[in-house]
């Protein structure tokens, strides 16, 4: 088991290298002058020259790459032009907001999608099966920013059940003391239930927006792989041995059916992290996605680069966790290493 984890960790190294190279190329292979790009639209010639020397853009590409890697190792992602703050600090401060939102959305969708998919497969052809199919196709077709706006209109403007879609807490509440950075968890840990309620009410709409979005692929995959496994020979053997329905569906079918679902989670995370950016913009969520969007508008490139890099590293790590999870369930992976 440990061997498998170690091996997986080695295997992500090429991916990380790829990520670093691509983010480097994104900045240096720009059409036009990268120095002008980093200096921003307002800079004059002299400022651009200064930036060029400061960033080492006058050096050969390989030297620049070395310098880039060196900066990365020292945790330096450059400074934001508009705020003057180091990008790393900003990202560090905003990451928990994004992570809380993404995980909340994922958990919401798993809780709904997995049982839905199983029921749809077990009761194939029933109304729940049809619901699952409709949800699965409709869910992937909904532009996530559009769902978000619809939810805001219905639950904030029309019904008034939800607070204004402006960030993690309304203006009158104070943030809980920072422990994990997740407001839900921190407020519980510090015993501030009022804050918990306030942050939960802010989180519900964006969380559901993401949840609806990621629900579809999970439900679809669960249903499909449950169907495949239920039709498999070992389930037939299990039935022919008189095992009861619960054992057949849970111990035999479900655990096997989870394997493709876990693989799909990688794809779901890819979608979620991307959709996160759009949802943060709709709900003015102070995460790294909205940070990047703001920077994009002002042509402030360092934050965008830092954002892309952070997201990629995050995603690689998530995939690693998924791989390990897979190994925990599947002995073929675990034992073969």
């Amino acid at each position: 088991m440990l061997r498998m984890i170690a091996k997986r960790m080695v295997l992500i190294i090429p991916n990380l290298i790829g990520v670093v190279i691509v983010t480097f190329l994104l900045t240096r292979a720009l059409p036009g002058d990268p120095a002008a790009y980093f200096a921003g639209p307002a800079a004059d010639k002299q400022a651009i020259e200064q930036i060029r020397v400061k960033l080492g853009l006058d050096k050969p590409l390989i030297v620049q790459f070395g310098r880039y890697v060196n900066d990365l190792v020292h945790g330096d992602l450059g400074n934001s032009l508009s705020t003057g703050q180091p990008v790393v600090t900003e990202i560090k401060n905003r990451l928990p907001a994004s992570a809380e939102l993404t995980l909340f959305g994922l958990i919401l969708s798993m809780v709904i999608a997995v049982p839905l998919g199983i029921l749809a497969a077990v009761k194939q052809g029933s109304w729940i099966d049809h619901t699952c199919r409709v949800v699965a196709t409709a869910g992937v077709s909904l532009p996530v920013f559009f769902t978000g706006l619809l939810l805001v209109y219905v639950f904030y403007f029309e019904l008034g059940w939800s607070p204004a879609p402006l960030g993690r807490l309304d203006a009158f509440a104070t943030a809980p003391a920072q422990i994990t950075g997740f407001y839900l968890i921190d407020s519980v840990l510090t015993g501030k239930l009022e804050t918990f309620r306030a942050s939960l009410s802010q989180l519900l709409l964006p969380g559901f927006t993401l949840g609806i979005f990621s629900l579809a692929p999970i439900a679809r995959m669960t249903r499909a792989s449950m169907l495949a496994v239920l039709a498999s020979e070992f389930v037939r053997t299990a039935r022919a041995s008189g095992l009861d329905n619960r054992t057949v569906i849970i111990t035999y079918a479900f655990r096997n059916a989870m394997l493709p679902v876990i693989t799909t989670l990688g794809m779901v995370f890819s979608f979620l992290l991307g959709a996160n950016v759009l949802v943060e913009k709709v709900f003015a969520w102070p995460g790294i996605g909205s940070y990047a969007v703001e920077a994009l508008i002002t042509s402030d490139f360092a934050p965008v680069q830092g954002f892309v890099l952070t997201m990629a590293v995050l995603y690689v790590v998530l995939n690693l966790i998924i791989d390990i999870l897979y190994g925990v369930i599947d002995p073929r992976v675990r034992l073969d290493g």
Partner: protein
Amino acid sequence: MAKKAQKPSKLDRNRPTSMPLLDVRDLTVEFATRRGTVTAVKNINLTLAKGETLGIVGESGSGKSVTSYAVMRILDRAGSIAEGSVVFSGLDLRTAPESDMRDLRGREMSMIFQSPRLALNPIRKVGHQIEDVLLQHAQVDSDAVSERAIEVLEQVRIARPRERYHAYPFELSGGMCQRVVIALALACRPQLLIADEPTTGLDVTTQKAVMDLVVELTRERGMSTILITHDLGLAAAYCDRVVVMEKGHIVETAQSSAIFKKPEHAYTRKLMRATPRPGVTLRDLLPEGESARPKAVAKTAEAKAPAKKVKGVETPLLVIEKLVKEYPRQGGAASLAKIFAPKPAVQPDMFRAVDGISFTIARGESVGLVGESGCGKSTTSMMVMRLIDKSDGLIMFDGEDIGAIPARSFARLPLRKRIQMVFQDPTDSLNPRFTAARAIADPLLQLGGIPRDEVRGRCEALATQVGLPLNLLDRFPHQMSGGQKARVGIARAIALNPDLIILDEPTAALDVSVQAVVLNLLQDLKDSLGMSYLFVSHDLNVVSMLCDRVIVMQTGKIVEQGPTEQVMVAPQASYTRDLLAAIPHPPL
């Protein structure tokens, strides 16, 4: 989970033995499909006495499996019992509630399936899978259950059962998996065992071991067994009585001692005759009346048989010397894996699939290459075929060292025309998007050098030669039967008048009656065209009928070669003797 006492059974195990254990009356099973209701089996009548072994034999689509699923009531969602009754030990299974059925399955009636590896949950330890069944039927306390599971494994002759208890199916061989499946089925000591093609896909020696085990265990316990198989020989060898099914009907029920001696029904006779067995010729396989008839084959083709043999001095057509094929033992991540390997690998990095074999094939000769799966016979044929490159050794074809030509560039050489192949799976070997005519024409167009407007005529001549009705030439593979597809494959192989054809298990995917026809066709073609055959097969019986000489391979090496008669009657190597002994011997 601890269910202390055995659940009271709804069945009375002490009923008078004169009553049949299983009584199937007028069973009709229907399936709801897109095109309406399809009747899979119609008015089946079966009885099975206590302790009796019954064989149900039929070709694909005969409804033999459906019958057994209906008995167990594990038909697919679409299938249902439309008529009739199934009475097991006095209980009507058709009307029994599902909960009763669940108690019966695994406890009173068990089933083992084809492809043992697929029949086991791939991510659950085999020991736990056996425990699931034991606990379900309250056969044992939960604290004693693992001991009991090990005991059950021991009973099916699994070596080191205590270790194997913790194994996952992927860590066991196919034969071992089938033993686990048998253990699973017999764990609760049921009264009835249904074995659905239990040995299909297993090697013949493994088949014998598995069948012997099943028979021994069921006899010991006085169980009744239903063996479902396509192999009449296997059924007759292991069963008391045999039921022959065709297209959903039972055509004959007979004692197995009688089935080969005096089959009643025409279909049984045909099936019986088509079953390869020692001491018969290819012609004997065909139904009566067919064998005596002169062959209409090949009269149209230019008979070049005599011409070829005379040509020059009698040098062998193909000479194989010390041929070797090595493969790296591990896949792409090997180097990475090594870093984390707890200790350096003991095994060498290279695995020898073919380990220094030598043989020859004379002009017009047919040679059989026999061995069990993994013995290297297919690798050998692929190398001779020049589809893969050898690691070492010589492949001389008609005096030319073709082994030295890389497989990649061999495709477009004129030599390519002279060595062709008939593949194992007729479906897989035809391009789904090509019509039969296009498939046969492909070699003609690529290598034949025939004007385009003559290709069609040539295709039709070839089709006639292999007995393929001309109106089928414009069909796609999915619109043809297995036998028809096999004929297309053969027509394609002979299209360029090759000198050597490699037959790679050409009938393994076909029903026996079709196999009989195809084997005869191959023999006729050889006689009229004077080609040489290298017949690769796992089945000594089949090979012996078509081949002049037989080569037996085991783990990459040749253990014996000689004239067919000699190898079949007086085998030298002990492995050959094992192989011969493992072939089912029906009472003839």
